[in-house]
């Protein structure tokens, strides 16, 4: 019998990601900077804020003063680059849990994040006007919300775009697939921002999926897939800017695969030395996403080490202040348990409240 070959054969090797800035902060041949120096400076500062906040939080957590959280260290460009392509006034972000710089760009205040990490219900509230969906723990569960949100904006004739962040791990969940497929059908203005940081806790990418390219999944939903160097702020910004333009123009979603690396532990509860090869970690250190932009700006005389040191201090002070606020926040009250379960507490729950409080006092 004659041999017949499947029309779709998997790549044997990963496709080259989009790169604009090399590891030394130099523009790659033929590339022009996708953003102004001012925006690049803002980006450096925002990334440093994210890193500074997480460094401080990590040490507080180790002192037992905070709950578990997922530090962004190493993924600052991967999260902020795409967010910079959004307009915080009309666009939205549906975060996973490791996107601090992106959330800062959208306007979420340090104080709110500090409260959340302190396990305070008040920290769960997303302030009015901040276009960020609620903190999410259930992996991939926010992706359908991002689709509905983008689709709904479009139905109402608004030109907003929604961006869902999620990890290589989360991309294995059914919610990812159902969301991409629906967004394709509805041509919803959604950016699927898949951060492949090499790990889902201790599970390496090779066990997460056999595909060479997450971005290839877009073909199965009928929209474009873009693989991007996840430590290259410029590449991420450029790719996302184009995706946002398409989405706003009614051309539907884009899947962006950002190839980055988780430089710290998964969360404060994790010990990555049990599974991360120190050599690989060392290699990624050389690709630091913040330093790269700093070098780019330095070469143009727009940034220097003194500025780094000074801004670090500024961030430290801001973080300090945010946690001060958090630590001094009025203590939790049992009544809070009953708030925001429903718009108005039901008589049934009111009975339970009375009973619960009586038994506790």
């Amino acid at each position: 019998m004659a041999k017949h070959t499947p029309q779709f054969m998997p790549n044997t090797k990963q496709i080259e990601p989009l790169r604009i800035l090399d590891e030394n902060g130099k523009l790659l041949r033929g590339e022009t900077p996708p953003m102004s120096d001012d925006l690049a400076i803002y980006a450096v500062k925002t990334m440093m804020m994210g890193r500074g906040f997480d460094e401080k939080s990590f040490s507080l957590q180790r002192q037992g003063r905070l709950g578990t959280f997922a530090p962004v260290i190493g993924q600052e460009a991967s999260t902020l680059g795409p967010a910079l392509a959004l307009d915080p006034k009309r666009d939205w972000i549906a975060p996973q849990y490791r996107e601090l710089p992106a959330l800062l760009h959208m306007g979420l205040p340090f104080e709110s994040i500090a409260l959340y990490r302190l396990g305070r219900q008040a920290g769960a509230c997303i302030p009015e006007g901040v276009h960020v969906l609620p903190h999410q723990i259930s992996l991939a569960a926010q992706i359908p919300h991002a689709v509905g949100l983008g689709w709904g904006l479009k139905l109402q004739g608004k030109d907003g775009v929604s961006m869902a962040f999620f990890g290589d791990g989360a991309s294995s969940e059914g919610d990812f697939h159902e969301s991409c497929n629906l967004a394709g059908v509805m041509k919803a203005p959604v950016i699927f921002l898949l951060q492949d940081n090499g790990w889902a806790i201790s599970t390496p990418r090779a066990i997460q999926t056999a595909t060479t390219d997450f971005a290839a999944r877009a073909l199965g939903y009928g929209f474009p897939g873009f693989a991007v160097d996840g430590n290259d702020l410029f590449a991420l910004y450029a790719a996302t800017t184009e995706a946002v333009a398409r989405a706003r123009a009614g051309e539907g979603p884009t899947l962006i695969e950002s190839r980055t690396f988780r430089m710290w532990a998964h969360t404060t509860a994790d010990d990555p030395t049990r599974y991360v090869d120190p050599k690989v970690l060392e290699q990624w250190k050389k690709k630091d996403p913040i330093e790269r932009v700093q070098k780019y700006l330095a070469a143009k005389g727009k940034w220097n080490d003194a500025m780094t040191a000074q801004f670090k201090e500024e961030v430290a002070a801001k973080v300090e202040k945010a946690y001060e606020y958090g630590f001094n926040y009025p203590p939790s009250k049992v009544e809070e348990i009953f708030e925001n379960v429903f718009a108005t507490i039901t008589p049934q729950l009111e009975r339970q409240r009375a009973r619960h409080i009586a038994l506790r006092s």
Partner: protein
Amino acid sequence: MPQMNMVEAIRDALKLEMLRDERVVLLGQDVGHLGGVFRVTDGLQQFFGPKRVFDTPLAEAVICGSALGLAFSGLVPVAEIQFLGFTHQAFHQICHQIARTRFRSRGSHPAQVTIRAPFGGGVKTPELHSDAIEAQFVQAPGIKIALPSNPYDAKGLLLQAIRDPDPVLFLEPLRGYRLVTGEVPEGDYTIPFGKLRVVREGTDVTLIAWSVAVGLCERAAEKLAEKGISAHVIDLRTIVPLDVEGLVAAVEKTGRAVVVQEAPRSASFGSEVIATIQEECFYSLEAPVKRVSPPDTPYPLHGLEDHYVPTVDMILKVVVESLNA
């Protein structure tokens, strides 16, 4: 007043509310062009256009999850899951996301979302189409659950559900879809959640039910009346919130109670009704409160279903037990 069956009453509510509030959109499998596999949404896409009524891909989790996103965008979605059993595919989206988003966000991101789904036995459907799994959602605080037993309630409760600022699971009894008809006012009216309905006044024993079991209890009450036994029948209408006061009053009235349901016995809403009665009006009870329900076994293939679901006869027997206790 016009006579309607359940399907018509639900369609009427959807249409009215879509006319009144242009934020309301419908989505689900086959709800658009076909008008739903039971024709509940018949004609609505044609009437309101394809930007108000959406056929979706076959994926329950994203139907529910995107409904929440639609709500975040400012719309008021009413999603249909073709059969309640298939809410299990969307269980995380309903219980963890839709039910909790108000609490999770401390009020900043509520979910004005209605999820409709038919369920219940007696119409020889394939597996998983009949399962009465309402109690599973009761353990997911934050979502209200309405279970109309007749066309009038269906319309009024659905109008309330869509307008309710909280998410609502709206469960429609398959057996009553076309069979049960009744008078339904033409215009707008709502039925508040958490207020049970006294179906029939009685003095000897209280029959407690919701959804399709209400009809069973009514028929049982008629038979009991023939024997000179006066049954007080109540329809809970919503199980979240539960009308605790109404329930207690109804039980105290007779001192005896029987709960009738289509769900398996253990950890069902029937269990909750008994637990509540027991805690709230223990001293008024003259006999143990009993359940008439299927056993803790899966809903069988349709050749066996008549052996599975509660019957009027079973209710009669249990009432007699209660009276003799």
